[in-house]
């Protein structure tokens, strides 16, 4: 058994597919590439692959990670070449390495995600924007009501914010940079942070037109911050 870890993208071309569909697109690419992937035993065998963190519909990413368990270790470059030829538009491979020994699952180790949110402005004056971001950053706690098919749930957002939000002004739009912690007990989505900014801090943006891009997923502690392929 060999665990091949890949750093891949979810590009503009497939922005609107769900995480589940992204995963099955990878599965089919792996079959097309004829990688010696391992399957689970049992009545309904499935491919032994796993992802770090799910990405919502409408979100692109330059830093997705996937572990592929292989029955045998084949040359990394060769595996990457075969896979590249089988990937649909929007998925590129940025890095690849075999993980040595018994490494913990991606899902269990990744604890920080960074995002860029680009959203059109509804106000001329950048000062208003700066004010609401500052108020958010200075707030002790921000309670946000998450609505899901299962019902409503109140979540405190600030506990997940690893750093204050920073801001870049673009032409008629604004770009926010977010660092969000992923904890064993949960996390917050970047879209939800923007939702709170608009609803509670009067951020004057056209939230319907937001575009979210994940810029990184990290394993972070007091000493260092590394990406899963840098382990």
């Amino acid at each position, binding site marked *: 058994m060999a665990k091949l870890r890949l750093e891949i993208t979810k590009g503009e071309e497939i922005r*609107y*597919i769900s995480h589940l569909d992204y995963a099955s697109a990878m599965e*089919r690419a792996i079959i097309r590439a004829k990688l010696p992937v391992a399957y689970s035993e049992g009545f309904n065998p499935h491919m032994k692959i796993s992802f770090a963190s799910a990405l919502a519909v409408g979100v692109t990413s330059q830093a997705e990670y996937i572990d592929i368990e292989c029955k045998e270790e084949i040359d990394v470059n060769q595996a990457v070449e075969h896979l590249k030829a089988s990937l649909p538009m929007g998925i590129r491979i940025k890095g690849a390495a075999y993980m040595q020994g018994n490494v913990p699952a991606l899902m269990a180790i990744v604890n920080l995600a960074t995002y860029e949110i680009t959203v059109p402005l509804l106000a001329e004056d950048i000062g208003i924007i700066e004010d609401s971001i500052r108020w958010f950053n200075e707030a002790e706690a921000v309670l946000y009501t998450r609505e899901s098919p299962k019902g409503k749930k109140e979540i405190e957002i600030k506990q997940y914010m690893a750093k204050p939000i920073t801001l870049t002004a673009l032409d008629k739009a604004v770009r926010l940079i977010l660092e969000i912690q992923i904890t064993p007990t949960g996390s917050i989505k970047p879209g939800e942070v923007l939702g709170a900014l608009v609803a509670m801090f009067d951020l004057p943006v056209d939230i319907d037109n937001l575009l979210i891009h994940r810029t990184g997923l990290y394993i972070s502690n007091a000493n260092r911050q590394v990406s899963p392929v840098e382990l």
Partner: protein
Amino acid sequence: MITLDPAMLNRVIKPARYTGNEWNSIKKDHDTVSVTVALSLPDVYEVGMSNLGLKILYQILNNREDTAAERVYAPWVDMEAEMRERNIPLYTLESLKPVREFDIVGFSLQYEMSYSNVLNMLDLAGIPLFTAERDEHMPIIIGGGPCTFNAEPVADFFDCLVLGEGEEVMEDIIAAVSSWKKAGKINGRSGILKSLAQIGGVYVPSLYDVTYHENGMVAEVLPNCPEVPLVVTKRVVKDLNKVEYATRPIVPFLDIVHDRIMLELFRGCTRGCRFCQAGVLYRPVRERRPELLLKMAKEMVDSTGYNEISLTSLSSADYSCLPDLVDSLMGELKEQGVSVSLPSLRIDSFSIDLAQKVQQVRKSGLTFAPEAGSQRMRDVINKGVTQKNLEDAVSAAFQAGWSTVKLYFMMGLPTETDEDVLGIADLAYKVLDLYKEIKGRRGAKVTVSVSCFVPKPHTPFQWFGQDLANEFERKQQLLKARLRDRSITFNWHDARTSFLEGAFARGDRRLGQVLLKAWQNGARFDGWSEYFKYDVWMDAFKTCEIDPYFYATRHRDFDEVMPWDHLSSGASKQFLQREYEQAVTEELTCDCRREHCSACGVCPGLGVEVLDWGSRA
């Protein structure tokens, strides 16, 4: 090229329906081709993407260097609203170009209830609805699929309709359109329509006039120009081993209806069930060679990455080399984790052996289609299955470890009595009893699905009146009262949808105005129960002063001119009438490929032979 606003895509459900970029989709530069084709099925993406015919045409057309074929499906109601609000015209998934800029738009007409979506899509595309209103700058609107064998209700909206198999005829159409364009569109729109009408299997409705008797029946349908044939006969591919197949189908990102490899073993079916339109339209039986099928299957696994192959044909268990084919498929592909499934089973123990073989890993439910509850009724429809066949098959299935069985039936079949209807319940209980006998305990789950029979053109039952909707509902209640066992799930179809389907299935050109009216008043996605608006349809009939019962529930005489008599499937009217008469007297007709020819007229008429490799071995 259309720009898709994130605000729009963020708001609709399943936005990936509208963004393309799937594996194996083909993007060509329109400046490098001479003909552009938008292929469409007038339903939502997941349904449209599952259609095998369109997959085949997509590959055949894109194999031509001079042609770009792209896809477009009906936007779901939420997306339609967004598009209308933003003035975004209907566009194709490959180039995101407006459909109205294409040379040809081809609609696959699988089902009468999708007609309102055709009008809606034309309107969204900014294409005039009526063929008479389109000039030579507008696309040529072509229909294909089973409904074209009586597309009279949509005749005014289509420039031409293609009868039969599309592989070869589409190439002829592309060649004609290409040379017409190169010659500077000589004689405009009527020039190209006249030349298309001379291609075998192509019906140009505007070149035919319909006259009616005072009692409302069709008097005659005659060409209004000398260049076109009196009767248009369907196209068939003589040897399926010699035409291109969809070996590189598009792999969607979304979970579609049939999300697997479709391996078409053969076309046609000679069982001769008298209600079945497909059995007539796709005659004769033409099998692919097993070695070619195996090669195709391997190619498709490699090109798609799918891990499931479905053996799709009208009655896959009838493929003459099936056991060997299944063995070789499983032998060659098991290593890659590919499973094989048989969607339709014949009711005998041979099928159970096969089902057991292909479902070694997971035992999902088994599905059988006895179609009718009583032996008398099954003889009327020529199902050729006995009570004993069914009992043996179900017993074999239970012995092999299955416990879930799904049974498909129809109600409203010609000559049906309440006793026949209640026979459905008896059969369901018999299945439960068999389980108890075999296993010594209860525990079987039976699903009984009963649809409302719709008489279709080109079948022996085309002369029969359909049951009234309230008669269907009465029979449904009758059966429901009898099926009061928790182990039995009873599903039935909406009788009013079937009534409308019945009116359009045997309708004539006058129904075009009803369709237009209903669409104007909001009808679309009529096949989807949540959007079916019965009252809108009935109002449209009333406004147009057209009686839907005249089409759906009226019995016809043999000498009546049918609105589709100028459209031929190859099967003669004499054959259909003979089958009708045998139905009434409960006489069976044998399978012409295993026993003797039943003289339907298809083979000699079309110059095509039955191809059955098993019988030649």
